[in-house]
């Protein structure tokens, strides 16, 4: 059994952070190595080094026993290393063929592109590995699961036999994940070796031949999947015993806070991404919206918070219609929004923390008298909130951009929770956060629920939905497939719904 790839002592420093610290990794030929670690552990940095996008400060890379120098992606490709990125590296307005041939285009007479040749080869690869991709399709028209296969074809077209898959299942339904695993199986059988990067414990146990765990830039250890379990892996990832389940009392729902009926919303490109959605959220309960990213959840939340106009339907908050209300009115009626893109919507990174803490209420007393801002209340408000929510920052005068992801999210939560709210809308609330922050945010959400708020959580992490929700609605292609009781729902059932498959027996549409 040869080691097709070895990384020895890889070290990489960024200003203020040691991203990789003497990392050693071994990939056996024809096997799948799972690289496990939570957000910020250093996995992506390591893979970027392997693929030539970064240069390591120390360490060496050995391919089939020979040391190699990788200066850029071209070198990596030459060594047979191919990367399937987490965020696809595909140009949406170009076709599959154009994306695949980019950078190594064959030509007629040295001048004109030879697309036919590439299309033919794409079909061959597609057939060989069961990928079912049409070379002439435009990327923007393809569903996410197929786009991922285009990424795989890109890599195979360049004769890669060491494949790096970076968080490949982040955007797939459980059924699509099954499909991916079958493809991985075919790849292994044809002699490829795979590095599988993920933070999902169950997948690791299902698929890996070897497991290496990273934490805070260092290798914590390697373990045989046969001897591992979710608990053991979680502890290795985080370094302490981790509570994988959110403790919560059963819910005590009362009247409805939010009633949505037959809502239609267009996205920024004028496509109808929400198509006739109806549901309600009651006081004192958490309604989770599950679904793979891109099925209309983002636009639904924007519509509820006034950031996107609606085409048809109704939205009622405590009996009043807010469908045409401005974001400010919606805010003032007691809606809090933890946005999906915290740096885009939730904070002004170049403003100090104290300004961000009053971003939504700056025009009200005591922060302003008339149009004049009052510095003293602004500062004391920020001081209190920073203390209360344990935001790690040297003081309240630094810019929000200097905070870590988890602390930025805490600022947003602190701000949103510091006004009286009836409805909390949390969209992907723990994306990209470390485990400690995730636990904290989950606790805060349940706390609000127990205080009598209605809570709407949108997340593409099924585990998070199952942990937090009292009822679960599944969105697929802009519609709600079903709304089920969280206590009795199973992952398989939800997975089917997420893939658009209605159960043959009666659905529990509330």
């Amino acid at each position, binding site marked *: 059994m040869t080691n097709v790839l070895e990384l020895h002592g890889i070290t990489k420093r960024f200003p203020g952070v040691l991203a990789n610290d003497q990392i050693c990794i071994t990939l056996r030929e024809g096997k799948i190595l799972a690289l496990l670690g939570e957000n910020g552990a250093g996995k992506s940095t390591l893979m970027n080094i392997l693929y030539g996008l970064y240069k390591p400060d120390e360490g060496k890379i050995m391919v089939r026993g020979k040391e190699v120098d990788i200066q850029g*992606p071209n070198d990596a490709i030459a060594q047979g290393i191919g990367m399937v990125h987490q965020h696809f*590296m595909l*140009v949406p307005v*170009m076709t599959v063929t154009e994306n695949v041939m980019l950078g190594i285009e064959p030509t007629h007479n040295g001048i004109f592109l030879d697309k036919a040749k590439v299309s033919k080869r794409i079909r061959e690869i597609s057939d060989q590995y069961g990928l079912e991709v049409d070379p002439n399709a435009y990327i923007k*028209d393809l569903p996410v699961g197929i786009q991922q296969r285009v990424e795989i074809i890109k890599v195979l077209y360049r004769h890669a036999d060491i494949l790096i898959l970076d968080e490949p299942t982040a955007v797939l339904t459980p059924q699509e994940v099954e499909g991916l695993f079958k493809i991985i199986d075919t790849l292994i059988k044809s002699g490829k070796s795979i590095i599988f990067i993920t933070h999902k414990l169950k997948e690791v146990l299902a698929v890996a031949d070897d497991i290496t765990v990273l934490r805070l830039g260092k290798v914590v250890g390697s373990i045989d999947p046969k001897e591992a379990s979710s608990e053991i892996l979680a502890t290795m990832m985080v370094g302490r015993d981790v509570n994988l389940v959110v403790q919560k009392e059963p819910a005590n729902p009362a009247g409805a806070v939010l009633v949505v009926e037959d809502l239609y919303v*267009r996205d920024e490109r004028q*496509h109808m991404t929400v198509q006739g959605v109806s549901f309600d959220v009651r006081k004192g309960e958490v309604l989770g919206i599950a679904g793979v990213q891109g*099925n209309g959840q983002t636009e639904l939340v924007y519509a509820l918070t006034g950031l996107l106009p609606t085409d048809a339907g109704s939205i009622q908050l405590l009996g009043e219609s807010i469908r045409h209300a401005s974001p400010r009115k919606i805010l003032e009626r007691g809606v809090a929004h933890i946005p999906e893109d915290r740096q885009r919507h939730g904070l002004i990174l170049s403003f100090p923390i104290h300004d961000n803490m009053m971003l939504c209420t700056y025009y009200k007393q005591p922060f302003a008298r008339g149009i004049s801002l009052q510095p003293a209340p602004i500062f004391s408000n920020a001081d209190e909130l920073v203390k209360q929510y344990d935001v790690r920052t040297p003081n309240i005068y630094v810019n929000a951009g200097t905070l870590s992801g988890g602390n930025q999210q805490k600022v947003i939560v602190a701000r949103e929770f510091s006004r009286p709210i009836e409805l909390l809308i949390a969209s992907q609330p723990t994306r990209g956060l470390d485990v400690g922050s995730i636990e904290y945010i989950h606790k805060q959400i349940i706390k609000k629920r127990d205080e009598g708020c209605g809570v709407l959580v949108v997340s593409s992490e099924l585990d998070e939905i199952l942990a937090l929700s009292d009822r679960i609605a599944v969105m697929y292609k802009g519609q709600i497939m079903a709304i089920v009781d969280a206590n009795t729902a199973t992952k398989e059932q939800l997975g089917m719904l997420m893939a658009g498959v209605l159960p043959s027996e009666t659905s529990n549409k509330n």
Partner: protein
Amino acid sequence: MKTSNREISSETEKRQRISFGVTLLVVGLLIYLIFGLNTQADALATFGLNLSGSQALEVPDLVVPSLAGVYVMAILAVFAGAYQLARGVRNTGWLIGILAFTFVVAFLLWAVQDKSFSLTGMLSSTVVRATPIVLAALCGVISERSAVINIGIEGIMLMAAQTAVITATVSGNLYVGLFFAILMGGLVAALHAYLVIRFKVDQTVSSVAINIFGAGATAFISSRFMQSAGDMLNNSGTFPIISIPVLSKIPVLGPVLFENNLIVYLTIVLVIAMHILLYYTPWGLRTRAVGEHPKAADTLGINVYLMRYVNVILGGMIAGLGGAYFTIGSVGRFDEAMTAGKGFIGLAAMIFGNWNPIGAYTSSLIFGFADSLQVKLQILRIPIPSEFLLMAPYIVTMIILTGVVGRAIPPAADGQPYEK
């Protein structure tokens, strides 16, 4: 995300359809009111189709009864409007074309009543006056396709124009002037690229700096050196008109397209060449990828920075050619601020043409038409102050930029510096 078949004909679509239809109806009505009521019943508009001194075969003048023509245009507009309200048309481009066509034709018929007007002359003038606009637009296209905004085209053209005339006068050779103009364009663009790519200077700020510097430097040299030494520095002559054999004999089209000077011909060639380059060669594919998703290109081993440098410099060279047009391709001397905003109008043409060369060419022709129309109309002495006619291209630009005439989508990474 691909939308399913369950798409509702939404309120917004309906609103757009109605607004377009109503606009057309209103335009038809305006045509009747403004032009119809102000035209003599028996007036005849004579459109000359021959250009004196041209190789083309002679053809009789086109004589049209003004009032009848105006009525036809009004009816056409109203009909189109009614059709739009009733049925709705997929391609709004057609509607805009009809709108513009009917209005302009009616306007001409009214303006030329009982007078004579050289139609071929105006068309020829359109192509010629469009030339600097096209070149500015092409510069913008190639630069922005790789995601670098360059609003400094005006400054580049000024500097290139001055360089062309000085070097051509001093050397006595127009081709020398052409060479140095193109070189100057490339150099200034290289500076812009360097500032924007290496130092990540805001692309608009860098462009404005180039414009300020260009205006200042050319004015400085002009007043300091050229005004006193006019014959030695500012008297280059211009490229002669070259008639293409056979093709120049075609009536109307001949004089318009095939009797022009070198720079105009080069421009047409460049449009076609750039189109082929962008869409049929590896270079073009990579350029577009760099403009849409530079990270994707980077991960495939393409050097994003190099692509941007080359494209911006190429664009600068094209702008240099555009600058040369003003002096050695047109009047043979340099006057301060002679580019008169053509660099910016070229950008509008680029946007209107959806960032592709052929689209940019068509839009530039429209601007050139407006430009030459305003000149010819002054000759006709119609009762509109010339200053208002001169404003027309700028107003049209602003209307286009609102996007009501179709929303153009720029390359996705346009204007954003690339961080590795």
